[in-house]
């Protein structure tokens, strides 16, 4: 695998948050990237063949593929059987017409799919250019060596060109190793080694650089992300599986029926046929066995309608229709991003009505991934309200206009010069690891490693303590308009054990201060005894609101002590062994006797309607598991915020278990609120086998399950676990690249579009913009789809079995000779014309209760989970019903016509009249059955039902007319039958009798069932019906968000270790002259995909000229 490029023209393609993205177009490249303003074309040799067919190969290839399908092959066998004169019990057209129709429709669908597939790979929206390919990063604008990667969407603005020299890239073939890349780059005779640090994998976004040049190494499905996302398995619904089993059963049943009839034929041959010779000679003599053999196959042809081939086509049409409804739904359209819901897979709809487990990502799915500084407590007094007057920050030139705060009294306090308040914000402006960026005077941007920190520093900025710039030794801030520079003496970095970070600064006046922020529990332990009387009530209140709290404290230090501490700190830092422990000890020593300043409350903003959605889904008996890469605290916090965890579920036990490899797999379970945490190192690839079942058993006893610190692979494994052991239908919802594996593993994958790029959406089956639409997708669309599909299947099997069984009964009266009961044209058109549209109409429009009531009564969802509407049992019931109907439909006409004549004495019990009578009875009976099944009669349904019946009579009269007989004499032998028998009162009385006998027992049975054992559906329907006139359906209820005072710490901080060292190392500020632009390669830390936690920004540090040992420490 190599990429050869020459004469590259690089075009500027996009800009996002001042990140400019260039992609190269080379005229003679192996892997080729070209683009225009609206699309990026990825192609190999300028034409990757992703479409399966071309114009000429389409027909033969497609036909070959189609006949590989069991159903079509079966048809072909039937057709061949029909061509054998000895066996042929039906004319060829009875099979050819439906087969042609099925083949044509499938071919059209395949052709259109092929055209779409063509487009999917070639035309990529511009915004997906980086999310579609793995790039080799060539150079960037940024002299800073700290480059962040972000995953966000890109957008295009203008074009810019520059030219590259010829070069060649040789690398490994596409593979799924996210952490490895091997290759060489040869430019101007010089060869450079390429490794994983020098490629930008699909799924990342560059930050902090104005522009960069990249060369596409792997595109589309070759990218490492796609290769590692697991094979895209062809998903099938459980109904599909059941249908296949049933079809096999039906095959068996068909064989049994045919065998019975064949045996009957043998007996008849011996007893009757052998003596009937004078009238029906047997030139080859009587051979009962051979006759039975032929009869078997003849009946296979006649009874083949029990294996309904049009079933598959109809099922596809219904699913397609129901998918369109999802695409079209305005209630799942998000106007802010102009994103409609999208059914990306059209074959899974009914499974949406059977979901038992939902696996949800947290960041970006439940939350907006926006942190807002909502409240704070200073000196024991709480500021900030959730609503109310917004604060005017215009007095502060450097204020961030996007920042919103709802309590003016705090600003007044700060402006009045309240020392505590000022100290509070000074701390926020100094104690952090944020990188500032000020392109033009006053236009500040913060690059924060965690959004929490970003929110806190921005808050300080708006309240007049503006963080402007930092060097490794100093921090420059504006304090109420005055510029002050603090010497930064030490950063006591954050980590998950310490749960706090501190900075030690010297003010311009020479005062030494330690500022500390951290978890309330941790900080309170280290307070000076004089502060202990302070109440924690405010903090508990914040925690009860689901806010993330941090306690702030400071401490004045004296110079001598500081001098001594710094010396020891330096010694510890350069110590060869025990460095970590010694530093921890030093930190522990200095961070005590702190003075409490207050606390901050940052809201991890939930998406709109998340708690309500979760509540409704829970009522529908759907279990929701949150799988997140986040830390336990943050995940728990969100659990409380969206009412998944409640205050009455308190204790969290952490059960730790060590595996053979010594990896930690920590499982924490609380008594009531059950929080499961996998605290495993990022390299733990699998859940340990022996723990799997234990985990599942425990988790399934829980109301709520939250898995933290899970890697993408583990997410998929949890899903597989539930799929495998619980045999339940699962749904995974997520928005990021780390959710792809889980989305693919679950029965249904849902992608949240427009948040973190397109990876999740691209591998999902359904996508929409907001988590809350999940409620509508499942409770309305899913339920309806399931209901419709089941109704369709039940009815379809009913009508075909009834049709076929009549033949079976007739066999006993026609010497088992495979004589059809109906006209051959009726057999041809029954499934295609006479009954096709009404049942499609029902399966596309039917609703038992409307959408509002569906969402209103989540209990309505349970029949789908329990598989109540269509199962093997329902199928057997269907067959029994068919059996009854067919008995009526054959024996009533038989008895009513026995030995009778027309009202003018002429013949009416002739075969043709009887066939017409039987088929008319059948059609009317199945149409009435359909009408009984239809709950929702739109004009279209009426049109289809009446239209099909009218079409039947119109077509029948036409085919039985003189004209048709004169033109096609032997094709339409039923001439005159309709005229001669449908004018007879006893024929119509027979039809009425059979219809009533087929319909009334069903009505009586259903009525009695409703009276004796009303289902929830019946109750809702009746209530709906009764109240419909009086009251409109109630508007969706917004349950009041329950806030209970808590004794729980609200601490949560999505920060990682290592940044303190980074900002003090000084390396980030080295501005190097760039000697060789073209070969400048940006290494990158390991991919976000291989890491458990979703990361907002990751640093890409060090240029290729930096010696290895100078590389900054990277997080493991």
């Amino acid at each position, binding site marked *: 695998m190599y990429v050869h490029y020459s004469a590259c023209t690089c075009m500027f393609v996009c800009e996002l948050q001042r990140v400019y993205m260039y992609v190269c177009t080379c005229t003679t490249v192996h892997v080729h990237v070209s683009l225009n303003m609206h699309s990026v074309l990825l192609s190999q040799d300028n034409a990757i063949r992703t479409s399966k067919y071309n114009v000429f190969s389409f027909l033969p290839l497609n036909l070959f593929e189609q006949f590989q399908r069991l159903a079509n092959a079966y048809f072909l066998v039937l057709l061949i059987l029909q061509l054998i004169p000895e066996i042929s019990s039906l004319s060829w057209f009875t099979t050819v017409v439906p087969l042609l129709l099925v083949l044509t429709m499938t071919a059209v669908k395949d052709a259109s799919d092929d055209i779409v597939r063509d487009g999917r790979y070639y035309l990529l929206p511009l915004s997906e250019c980086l999310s579609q390919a793995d790039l080799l990063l060539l150079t960037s604008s940024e002299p800073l060596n700290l480059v962040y990667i972000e995953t966000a969407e890109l957008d295009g603005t203008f074009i810019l060109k520059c030219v590259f020299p010829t070069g060649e890239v040789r690398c490994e073939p596409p593979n799924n190793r996210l952490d490895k890349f091997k290759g060489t780059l040869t430019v101007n005779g010089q060869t450079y080694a390429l490794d994983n640090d020098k490629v930008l994998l699909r799924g990342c976004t560059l930050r902090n650089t104005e522009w960069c040049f990249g060369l596409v190494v792997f595109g589309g499905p070759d990218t490492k992300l796609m290769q590692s996302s697991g094979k895209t398995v062809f998903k099938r619904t459980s109904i599909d599986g059941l249908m296949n089993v049933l079809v096999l059963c039906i095959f068996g049943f068909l064989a049994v029926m045919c065998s019975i009839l064949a045996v009957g034929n043998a007996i008849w041959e011996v007893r009757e046929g052998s*003596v009937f010779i004078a009238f029906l000679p047997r030139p080859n003599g009587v051979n009962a066995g051979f006759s039975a053999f032929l009869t078997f196959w003849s009946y296979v042809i006649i009874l083949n309608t029990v294996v309904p081939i049009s079933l598959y086509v109809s099922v596809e049409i219904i699913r397609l229709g129901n998918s369109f409804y999802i695409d079209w739904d305005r209630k799942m359209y998000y106007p802010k991003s102009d994103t409609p819901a999208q059914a990306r897979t059209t074959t899974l709809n009914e499974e949406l009505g059977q979901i038992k487990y939902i696996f949800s990502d947290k960041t970006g799915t439940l939350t907006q991934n926006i942190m807002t500084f909502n409240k704070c407590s200073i000196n024991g007094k709480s500021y900030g309200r959730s609503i109310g007057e917004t604060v005017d920050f215009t007095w502060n030139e450097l204020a961030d206009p996007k920042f919103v705060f709802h309590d003016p009294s705090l600003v007044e306090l700060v402006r009045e010069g309240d020392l505590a308040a000022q100290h509070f914000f000074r701390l926020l402006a100094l104690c952090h690891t944020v990188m500032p960026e000020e392109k033009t005077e006053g236009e500040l941007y913060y690059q924060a490693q965690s959004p929490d920190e970003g929110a806190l520093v921005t808050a300080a900025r708006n309240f007049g303590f503006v963080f402007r710039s930092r060097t490794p030794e100093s921090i420059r801030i504006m304090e109420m308009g005055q510029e002050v520079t603090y010497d930064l003496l030490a950063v006591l970095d954050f980590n998950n054990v310490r749960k706090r970070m501190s900075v030690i600064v010297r003010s311009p006046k020479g005062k030494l201060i330690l500022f500390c922020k951290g978890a309330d529990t941790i900080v309170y332990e280290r307070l000076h005894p004089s502060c202990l009387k302070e109440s924690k009530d405010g903090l508990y209140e914040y925690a009860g609101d689901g806010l993330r709290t941090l306690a702030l404290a400071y401490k004045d230090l004296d110079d001598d002590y500081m001098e001594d501490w710094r010396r020891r700190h330096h010694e510890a830092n350069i110590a060869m062994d025990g460095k970590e422990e010694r530093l921890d000890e030093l930190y522990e020593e200095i961070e005590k006797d702190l003075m409490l300043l207050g606390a901050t409350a940052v809201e991890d903003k939930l998406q709109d309607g998340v708690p309500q959605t979760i509540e409704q889904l829970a009522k529908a008996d759907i279990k929701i598991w949150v799988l997140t890469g986040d830390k336990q605290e943050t995940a728990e916090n969100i659990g409380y915020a969206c009412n998944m965890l409640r205050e009455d579920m308190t204790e969290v036990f952490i059960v730790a278990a060590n595996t053979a490899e010594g990896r930690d797999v920590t499982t924490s379970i609380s008594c009531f609120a059950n929080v499961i945490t996998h605290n495993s190192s990022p390299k733990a690839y699998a859940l340990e086998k022996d723990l799997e079942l234990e985990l599942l058993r425990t988790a399934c006893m829980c109301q709520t399950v939250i898995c933290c610190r899970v890697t993408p692979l583990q997410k998929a494994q949890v899903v597989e676990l539930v799929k495998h052991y619980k045999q339940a239908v699962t749904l995974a919802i997520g928005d990021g690249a780390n959710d792809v594996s889980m989305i693919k593993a679950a029965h249904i994958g849902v992608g949240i579009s427009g948040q973190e790029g397109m990876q999740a959406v691209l591998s999902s089956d359904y996508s929409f913009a907001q988590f809350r639409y999940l409620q509508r997708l499942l409770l309305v669309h899913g339920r309806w789809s399931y209901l419709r599909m089941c109704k369709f299947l039940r009815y379809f099997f009913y009508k075909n079995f009834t049709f076929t069984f009549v033949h079976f009964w007739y066999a006993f009266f026609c010497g088992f*000779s495979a*004589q059809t009961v109906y006209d051959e044209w009726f057999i041809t058109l029954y499934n295609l014309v006479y009954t096709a549209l009404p049942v499609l109409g029902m399966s596309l429009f039917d609703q038992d209760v409307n959408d509002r009531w569906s969402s209103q009564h989540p209990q309505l969802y349970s029949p789908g989970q329990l598989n109540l509407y269509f199962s093997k049992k329902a199928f057997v019931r269907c067959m029994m019903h068919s059996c009854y109907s067919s008995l009526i439909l054959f024996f009533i006409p038989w008895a009513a016509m026995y030995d009778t004549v027309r009202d003018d004495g002429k013949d009416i019990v002739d075969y043709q009249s009887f066939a017409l009578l039987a088929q008319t009875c059948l059609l009317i009976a199945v149409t009435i059955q359909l009408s009984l099944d239809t709950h929702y009669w*739109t004009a279209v349904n009426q049109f289809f039902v009446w239209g099909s019946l009218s079409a039947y009579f119109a077509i029948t009269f036409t085919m039985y007319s003189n004209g048709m007989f004169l033109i096609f004499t032997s094709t339409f032998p039923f001439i005159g039958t309709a005229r*001669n028998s449908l004018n007879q009162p006893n024929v119509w009385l027979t039809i009425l009798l059979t219809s009533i006998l087929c319909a009334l027992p069903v*009505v009586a049975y259903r009525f009695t069932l*409703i009276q004796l054992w009303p289902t929830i559906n019946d109750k809702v329907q009746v209530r709906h019906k009764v109240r419909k006139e009086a009251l409109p359906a109630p508007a969706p209820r917004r349950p009041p968000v329950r806030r209970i005072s808590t004794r729980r710490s609200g601490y949560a901080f999505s920060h990682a270790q290592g940044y303190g060292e980074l900002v003090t190392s000084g390396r980030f500020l080295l501005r190097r002259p760039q000697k060789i632009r073209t070969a400048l390669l940006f290494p990158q830390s390991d991919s976000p995909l291989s890491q458990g936690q979703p990361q907002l920004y990751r640093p890409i540090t060090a240029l290729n000229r930096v010696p290895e040992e100078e590389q900054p420490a990277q997080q493991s």
Partner: protein
Amino acid sequence: MSKEENTANRPDNTAFTQQRLPAWQPMLSAGIVIPGFVIIGVAFIGIGVALFVTSQNIQVLEKDYTGIETNSSCFKCTNPRVKNCNCTINFSLDKLFEGPVFVYYGLSNYFQNYRKYGASKDAAQLTGDLAYFTEPSTSCVPYQRDAKNKPIVPCGSIANSMFNDTFKLFQIVNSGNVAVPLDGKGIAWWTDYNIKYRNPTTNPLKNAFNDTVKPIFWPRPAYELDTTNAANNGFINQDFLVWMRRSALPNFRKLYRRITEGEYAKGLPAGDYALVIGYNYPVKAFDGRKKVVFSNVSWMGGKNQFLGIAYLVIGSLCVVMSIVMLIVYAKFKFPDEE
């Protein structure tokens, strides 16, 4: 700014796309189901009574003449070696058999609905297409050609096995016999006579049958089926048409003649009758039965008790069911619940 107003992707707000099409949602409520059952029940009982009474008023007289029993006058004819056998069956009517009276012949255990039997004919030949006279369809095998390879017209099993017993009816008046005129006109379907079966336009008809042979079992060729009426020959012979409309069931009766002429138009008066049968058709070999049936008809066709009884039973069941459902409803009253 314009982003917020950008709604290019917003789905259309139509009743169809939003699944809000106005619809009628019927429910199986007690107010519809129970009265419905009562109405259907009452209506069915009404129809049933009418059908039953009508059917009761239809007179039917069946006479089996197969000759299985040794004391039967037709017993002698069952021997296949006896040719041109005649037998007589006497019967008496004690009251007027109201006219018009239809005379049927009935066959049982006769599988005209056997698939291969039913397919054994050439529809094109029977429309008078001369091309098919020389080349009959292979569906007629083994009655496509005779032993000398001459084409059989009309070909096939159905035509070959045409019923060929004859009936003559006499009223015995003062020990003298008065022939009852039997009318054989218009006993087949109009469409069969005019459209489906046609003779070749060749004149005389006999010429069309040059180089063909008659069906093996037939005594005379097709153009001489009716020796009394030259127009009633070929494929449009009424008896032939009646026979060719094959039966759906193995027991069937077919119209032979109508009694519509002279004093018998009003019916057969009470008295003694003699039915003289030209016994030609062998059925004994396959346990078949032959009978002759005299019947009159009503608006509902021939005599069939089943429909009337079925309507009465179903009607009554509906009424009973409505009472049961009323009790269930009164006891549970589901829709009014809560």
